[in-house]
């Protein structure tokens, strides 16, 4: 349901030839469009299983739909309200979008390089994570409804979705009282783990356990260091003394190799490693393409394929984003 002038994302630059932005098209495949008013909304809700709103959807359009209304008149409706800070507590109702959710939710303060201004996650992490959690909340409520006949009113906060991502930082803070800052591409709890320079670029190496570290030492021709007490176990490798030592070994080993050579060798020895792809490269990536993750309709904007690969109920993208009011014939 859109306001009479259309969802504001339709006008967000860059615009496609038909005036609708590719951003709108990407987010709105598979949908029907109808211009919203109070009467149409109430009539449709009576026939709907799920009502989704975000902070801009209802109040901004002069529609007052209280929880009491919903519970009294639509008792089997599953309503999910997305908002920056939820509908309870001291910050309820505060405005904010992706950047503020990331900033307040602790994502910004932990992204970037030490000593520099921190960064947001480039992609809209808080919104996407909230969308997935909202999907789980809604579908579990629908599952419950099959038996109980009762709907639910779900309160999904972008803040909650962001803080839920901080789990790797809780231990350090609550045990040591230290606030983790940005660590570049290192991992707080395991090492070696970073992007390392090669002759012609970077390679990412993630050593998650002792076995992989020992495999790596063998690859480097340094099997004699497997029992070296300075970095035999992960607890030592993440310490202030151990981490620079293992990073140094990795850097020396990779210095005379290209990224492709390094990745081939590391993978052959079961050390998790990979390149850094830009987005155009991702679009051509054989794996991403084999999974049908990039979809287009008649040469128009690209939209993401379904992340839900399921043997009985595979997710699919079946139609392009609708024109405004395209489905006005929908009978409320």
């Amino acid at each position, binding site marked *: 349901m859109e306001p009479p002038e259309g969802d504001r994302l339709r006008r967000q630059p860059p615009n496609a030839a038909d005036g609708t932005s590719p951003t709108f098209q990407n987010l709105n495949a598979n949908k029907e469009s109808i211009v919203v008013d109070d009467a149409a909304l109430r009539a449709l809700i009576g026939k709907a299983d799920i009502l989704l709103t975000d902070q801009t959807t209802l109040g901004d359009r002069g529609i007052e739909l209280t929880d009491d209304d919903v519970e009294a008149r639509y008792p089997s409706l599953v309503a999910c309200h997305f908002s920056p800070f939820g509908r309870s507590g001291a910050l309820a109702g505060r405005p904010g*979008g992706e950047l503020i959710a990331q900033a307040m939710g602790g994502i910004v303060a932990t*992204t970037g390089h030490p000593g520099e201004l921190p960064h947001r996650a480039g992609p809209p992490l808080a919104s996407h994570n909230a969308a997935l959690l909202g*999907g789980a909340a809604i579908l579990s409520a629908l599952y419950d409804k099959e038996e109980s006949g009762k709907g639910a009113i779900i309160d999904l906060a972008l803040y909650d979705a962001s803080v839920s991502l901080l*789990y790797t930082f809780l*231990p350090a803070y609550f045990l040591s009282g230290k606030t983790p800052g940005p660590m570049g591409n290192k991992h707080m709890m395991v090492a070696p783990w970073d992007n390392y320079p090669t002759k012609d670029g970077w390679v990412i190496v993630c050593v998650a356990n002792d076995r992989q570290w020992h495999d790596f030492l063998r690859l480097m021709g340094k099997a004699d260091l497997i029992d070296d007490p300075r970095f035999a176990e992960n607890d030592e490798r993440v310490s202030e003394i151990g981490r620079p030592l293992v990073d140094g070994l990795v850097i020396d080993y990779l210095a005379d190799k290209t990224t492709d050579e390094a990745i081939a060798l590391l993978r052959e020895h079961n*050390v998790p490693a990979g390149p850094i792809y830009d987005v155009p490269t991702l679009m051509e990536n054989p794996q991403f393409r084999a*999974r049908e993750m990039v979809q287009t309709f008649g040469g128009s904007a690209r939209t993401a394929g379904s992340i839900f690969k399921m043997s009985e109920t595979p997710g699919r993208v079946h139609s392009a984003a609708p024109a405004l009011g395209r489905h006005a014939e929908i009978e409320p």
Partner: protein
Amino acid sequence: MSAPLEGVRVVELGAYTTGPLCARYLSNLGAEIIKVEPLKGESMRTFAYKVGDVSYIFHVHNVNKKSVPVDTNTKDGKAVLFDLLRTADVLIENFAYGSMQKWGLDYETIRAVNPALIYCSLSGFGHTGPDRHLRAFDTVIQGMAGVMAMTGTREGPPIKIGISAADNMGSAAGAMAITAALHHKCRTGRGQHINISMHDIQGWLTSECWALLDTEAGPQRNGNRHFAVAPQNIFAAADGLIAVEIETQKQLDALCDMLGVGQIALEDSKAHEASLEAALQEWVAARSVDTAVEDCLACKVPAGRVQGMDDVAENPFTWEREILVSLQHPESGEVKILGSPFKSNRSPGVVSSAAPTVGQHTRDVLGGLLGYSDERIDALVADKVIVDEASSV
């Protein structure tokens, strides 16, 4: 008040984050989780930052669960696992592609045991495609999916998202797919195989910038700015950082009023980015974080503090929302831990018990649920097929 997945039983064969956290999310929605661990306990128990002998992060991922260690490589262990799977609705596994097959636990085998079972595989690249054999951890996935390329400044190198985005979003996507499959199972009685790829999901995460692929400059990392709307950035107040984020014409009008500059159309806002940011930076610098945020909000300009882990943990709102909660662990005492992000008028989300010790629930589950006799359980313990906490002490 009842949690929506009450009565749903999940067997988790997981390690590290993606599988265990996916099961944890389902437990927040009310599902019962039986964690089938290796006899010595799951790998993440040994990670750095320990409470007692167990990694703190293991606690975070494993609240609400029952621990039943089984050596599934033995014939008897496999029989125990299959007995569990006959009673279960869902199996979650997050091993490298091919591992479950090697162990005789692939979907076709398990489907023969219980055709109604939802079998969810969470892996780096999924179970199809040329890269499905690759071993990968979070940062490798972020690198290969364009996420790092889009994070940081144009001048600086690519940066990963600080938190483990690929791991955690894989868990959330798994939880969503499983709840959809439960709905399908409820209607048809049929289970299915779900294969979730962390790489798919991180690639999907970048899809906002696909809109720029046909523009001259293409998608580029942009610091804290948005590619289409301004101003959105981090600004330095006298005692810390705040984020200001304009998304709508109304908010831009409010900002212009607040700064005392002329009105600008939202579609033209990027052209005025530099001057708006300079004026806003000057305005913010003259205030403390608290005052700057308060003044912005009073003018209806969206703003918020850049909260570090300490700010998040000390902010009473975080506890009021119960997104952080405190649990008592029988051995470790108080553990502060993530709550449930699933709040509804029917359930606040379940966070009921601390992470289990190895084999804490073996006797309960095998005796109570499967009806194994004490003698049979003792024999399985003696044969080193299972671990029972009581007998291992």
